[in-house]
């Protein structure tokens, strides 16, 4: 008997094809029923609005001014949940409210959430956000449109992208496709797929024409899955419990025996 062949899905975010139209942001808001924001200008690098992801924005196109030769140039980047193959957020959740589905999406079940925000703290990409103003707050982040994927639809952002900057398919195929694009146009792309092996691999694969740290990406992340960091300690819990309890019990027994003997000697004197 074989398990049903579930092939994990992935998306390519090809920033070289992005024109900054933000249709993906609109589609995302629309599908996830998020309210509008009051936008504002802020000082500093990046000219996108809003500045960062928040409880109302599950994805964001970043506008980065890159000085390329004599002229500054707009280079776009995108923020969204990376849907790690081994997600740190899900491993940190004490109630499995955050979990990874077979198809790939890392999703959040508010009915199990206690609101500890360990997932926010754990995420290497700083993705999960919180609605602190709410009486019953929830974790907010991109769901990889898990509900759409379940019925065979592609994520809303991939559906609406007018330039083909977002591609969706089986992860194996997407990796091949991303490598093909880099190989065919080495002048257009930097030879790096962000997400191929970051924190052990993710379900979103980013391509870019400039180094990722210049367009707001968090770089320098380990190539091994984050949950390994805690797992190597936590897996020792049961044996350590047994060994310590036995050692402490033995020492306590010796101590009490010594005390009893001293007590009896005292009586004989």
């Amino acid at each position: 008997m074989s398990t049903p062949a579930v092939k994990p899905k992935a998306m390519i975010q090809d920033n070289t094809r992005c024109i900054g139209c933000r249709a993906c942001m609109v589609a995302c808001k629309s599908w996830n029923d998020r309210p509008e924001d009051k936008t504002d200008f802020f000082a500093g690098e990046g000219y996108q609005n809003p500045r960062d992801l928040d409880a109302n924005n599950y994805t964001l196109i970043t506008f980065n001014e890159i000085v390329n030769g004599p002229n500054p140039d707009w280079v776009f980047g995108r923020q969204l949940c990376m849907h790690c193959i081994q997600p740190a957020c899900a491993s940190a959740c004490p109630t499995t409210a955050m979990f990874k589905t077979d198809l790939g999406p890392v999703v959040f079940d508010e009915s199990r959430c206690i609101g500890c925000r360990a997932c926010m703290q754990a995420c290497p990409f700083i993705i999960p956000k919180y609605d602190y103003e709410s009486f019953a707050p929830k974790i907010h982040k991109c769901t990889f449109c898990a509900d759409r994927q379940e019925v065979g639809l592609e994520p809303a952002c991939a559906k609406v992208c007018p330039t083909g900057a977002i591609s969706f398919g089986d992860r194996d195929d997407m990796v091949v496709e991303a490598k093909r694009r880099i190989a065919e146009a080495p002048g257009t792309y930097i030879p790096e797929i962000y997400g191929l092996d970051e924190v052990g691999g993710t379900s979103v694969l980013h391509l870019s024409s400039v180094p990722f740290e210049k367009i707001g990406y968090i770089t320098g992340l380990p190539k091994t899955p984050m949950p390994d960091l805690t797992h190597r300690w936590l897996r020792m819990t049961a044996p350590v419990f047994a060994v310590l309890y036995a050692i402490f019990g033995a020492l306590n027994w010796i101590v009490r025996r010594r005390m009893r003997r001293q007590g009896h000697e005292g009586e004989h004197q």
Partner: protein
Amino acid sequence: MNWRIRLTWWDKTLLAIVAVAAVIGFVRFATGIGTVANINNAYPWGWWVGYGIMTMIAIGGVGFTITALVEIFGVHRYHSFLRPAVLMAFLCYASAITMLMVELGRPWMVWMVLVSWAPTSALYEVGWCAFLYLTVLALEFARVPLEQAGWRRAFRIVSAIYIPIMLLGVTLSHLHQSSLGTLMTLIPHKINLLWWSDQLPLVFLFSAMMAGPAMAILEHLAAARWLGFEPRMDLLAGLARIEAWLVGLFLAFQMGDLFYRGVADAMFSASWFAVSFWVEIGFGLMVPFVLLMMPEVRETRRGLATACALIIAGILLHRLNVAVIGLRVRHWETYVPSFGEVGITLGITAAALFAFGWLARILPIHEELPSPETSTHSATHPAGAWRGAEGVS
């Protein structure tokens, strides 16, 4: 038994702080966390977790440290420190859990941890262990009020299970004190390399052990002053010697870890991280270590109180450095605790202090203080009931 006490100005001050915190707490529950707290999307954990939970659990380590010293390593001359230590630990854990109820976004769902299976989550282990350990501490301490109230049957039951429960408490403490550090090993990309180490579980366990004798000494000095008994300076000097060893070893471990990880030069970088590091190491470990190595300091109340207070403040700063100060997320994001955040933690701490002072006056917590001549353990120890379950006839 008489539960009433005369409230001193000190009690009234503490209760006033609790009242102010209760108002802030009401606002928090009526309108949400965002109204009273500055924690944000970049710093989801702030002062509440750094002080209210992580530091409280650390100084609650006095319970298992003194219990292990007396019951497991058999150093019985410190037996008179056991009851205050267990009560302090109970109140620290109760404070941490109260803090958790304020800090969680959905505190009414907290039971979900107990019906989940999440062995990959350090917080899951901390949650289970802290819940079990609070129960253990309550059972350990229950003998004092039960005996005082004359409930013989309940007293006998609690006494009969004392040994396995006590062993369980010490074991659970080792697990969850280290798991609090495990929790932070998950974010090497956020914590400054002065503090992130894959040995953080051991660092957290050792610092909790280090809090033990320091808290025991501070409590003894404070109780002697407020309850009006003569402090046992001979015993305090002994505890201070143990504490000096713990501080020295912890300092060596911290430094060794920095060199082992090859990041020792970060100590001398021109950054606020390095400043915070040196304040923590200098005033929290080096100064008290030197102080406690001097016999004249170990023999004076003021010297002991200064050294131990520095150690506790150092542990607080260490936990804050790991959980809050040492974190960099996005360079434009900042976090400074709000009045509401600090106010609520002050209220919880004041409530714990008041509860300790109240229980210390209505229960025989400090009664077994034999004079130096009879301080070596004997079967006719006046606190026979306290160790009745140990089978000492």
